[in-house]
């Protein structure tokens, strides 16, 4: 857990004084990622660097896991905080392995343990230890360097990580990949992370909480969905953008709005069976599945009225299916692309898992607004 209490930083220049952080208060619970978000120069980096005292605070308190950090000396404090910067800062004179082992060695680990840790971590980010441990940073691509930068910070297993625009210098495609990898890792490691970003999309994706900064002050500190659905003031609304509701689509997975009661029939079923299935679940759509429970087509209740023969004579092809794990942005995109009002969802094994309809999507997004109107 990281707690900031009235954290303030003023820079005194010959001509003026700049208040880079103004009575910042926030709590990041253990295992969560808090994104500090805001336009350039709003004080995100300053707030972050006060935590590992690269910038000494002017006033206020910082507590890590309940302990006031002012009792620790700078060196002790920094060795138990992972630090990742945009420029990565791998030491070019050291191999990847040596880079990763810097902090463990300073903490007095024996060499074997440190090296084993390096190999384990490099494996964790999907790089081959035999191939990469003995390379120099200049022999790696930008994305590989950034992965090493992240695992170097994780080497001594610090409870807290500070990340200052860690993926900012990576091209958009690789950035998405590294973000996903990092989230997967975080799901296991459960570090308490302060993450600086100036990109709302990244913040929404990475953050359990987002703190929006303006001129050293926190304008809003909330879960991403709250920030997008209920911006606290015009500044926040403007910063998150006019398409903020669309951005919320990313925060919800298809699973959460799937209608699991959609009737299904096998390919060998008769129209009579389909009619019964439709009637009992009060649904217009009946999905046809194969022997492995995979969706292969659909029929409508109207078509089945008075119909005769085999289901397969009536079945329409499904324009597309979406995995239940997909976020609603992907789902809606698929709907628009195929000009349809609903899509069949599949689970990890490709089995039918229900349908997502456009009304269900809009209802999910609208719910939060209705709730706040009633309040």
């Amino acid at each position, binding site marked *: 857990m990281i707690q900031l209490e009235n954290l303030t930083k003023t820079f005194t220049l010959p001509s003026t004084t700049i208040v880079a952080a103004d009575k910042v208060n926030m709590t990041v619970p253990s295992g969560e990622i808090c994104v500090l978000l805001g336009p350039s120069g709003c004080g995100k980096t300053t707030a972050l660097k006060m935590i*590992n005292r*690269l910038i000494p605070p002017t006033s206020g308190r910082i507590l890590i896991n309940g302990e006031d950090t002012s009792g620790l000396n*700078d*060196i*002790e*404090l*920094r*060795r138990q*905080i992972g*630090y990742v*910067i945009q*420029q*990565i*800062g*791998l*030491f*070019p*004179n*050291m*191999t990847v392995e040596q880079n990763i082992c*810097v*902090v463990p060695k*300073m903490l007095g680990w024996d060499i074997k343990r440190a090296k084993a840790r390096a190999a384990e971590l490099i494996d964790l980010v999907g790089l081959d230890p035999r191939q990469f441990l003995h390379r*120099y*940073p*200049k022999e790696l691509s930008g994305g590989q360097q950034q992965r090493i930068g992240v695992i*170097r*910070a994780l080497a001594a297993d610090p409870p807290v990580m*500070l990340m200052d625009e860690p993926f900012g210098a990576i091209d958009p495609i690789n950035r998405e990949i590294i973000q996903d990898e990092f989230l997967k890792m975080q799901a296991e490691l459960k570090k308490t992370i302060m993450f600086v970003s100036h990109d709302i999309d990244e913040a929404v994706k990475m953050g359990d909480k987002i703190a929006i900064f303006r001129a050293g002050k926190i304008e809003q500190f909330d879960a991403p969905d709250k920030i997008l659905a209920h911006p606290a003031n015009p500044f926040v609304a403007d910063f998150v953008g006019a398409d903020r509701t669309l951005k919320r689509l990313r925060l919800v997975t298809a699973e959460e709005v799937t209608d699991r009661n959609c009737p299904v029939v096998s390919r060998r079923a008769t129209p009579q069976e389909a009619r019964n299935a439709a009637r009992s679940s009060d649904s217009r759509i009946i999905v046809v599945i194969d022997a492995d429970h995979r969706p292969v087509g659909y029929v409508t209740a109207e078509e089945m009225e008075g119909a005769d023969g085999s289901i397969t004579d009536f079945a329409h092809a499904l324009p597309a299916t979406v995995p239940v794990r997909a976020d609603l942005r992907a789902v809606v995109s698929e709907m628009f692309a195929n000009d349809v009002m609903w899509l069949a969802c599949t689970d990890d094994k490709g089995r039918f898992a229900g349908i997502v309809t456009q009304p269900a999507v809009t209802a999910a997004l609208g719910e939060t607004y209705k709730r706040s109107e009633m309040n």
Partner: protein
Amino acid sequence: MVRQATGIGRNVQLLVMFGLGIWVCSSGLLGQIADNWDDIVYLSKQHMVLVGASGAAAILLGIPAGIWLSRPAMERYAETVMQVFNIGTTIPTLAVIALSMTILGIGFAPAFFGLFVASLLPIVRNTYTGLLAVPPHLKEAATGMGMTPRQILFRVELPNALYVIFSGVRTALAINVGTTPLAFLIGGGGLGELIFTGIDLMDTGMLLAGAIPTAALAVMVDFMMGQAQLRLVPKGVNPLR
């Protein structure tokens, strides 16, 4: 690329030396040079002591001085000091030797001191600029990871500046070796004695007896420095590897 170029340079050097050797042998100069053998041995020793002592002193003082000037606490004065040093490097080495004599008289001491001063400047300058050129984000990462200032200096700053520092030492030693024959002029001895006396007496044999070992020493020192730079600078920051 770089290595290839120096390879070609070395071949040319060897060829020239080989040609010189043939010429020296065929013209009967070899005998004349050999006549000076005792002097060659004695003066070479003196010469190498001068080079070694003044060079070592310059390295031992120059590198710490460069480090010291590059520390944040010295930021306000460092640039001024470097300006003075830069003016210092424009003074011809002969003048440095002469000035040294006016202060310290004649003999080993002024020769040593003059050579020391002449080789000090490139070492200090390269150490200083090499350390300043280490990217700030490396120092930030190192600090953020909890390295002490000392650890940052020895594990991050110096290794990353080492190539530039080595270049400074190489230049310094080239200047040193090239200037040492002048030490004779202020009573410092060395192979300059054979060269200058040879010129005075128009005795080509004696002149070559001084010039050839001087040239050989220069080639050898530069070769050794090149090898040291190639092998001692860490692979990740060595443009030669």
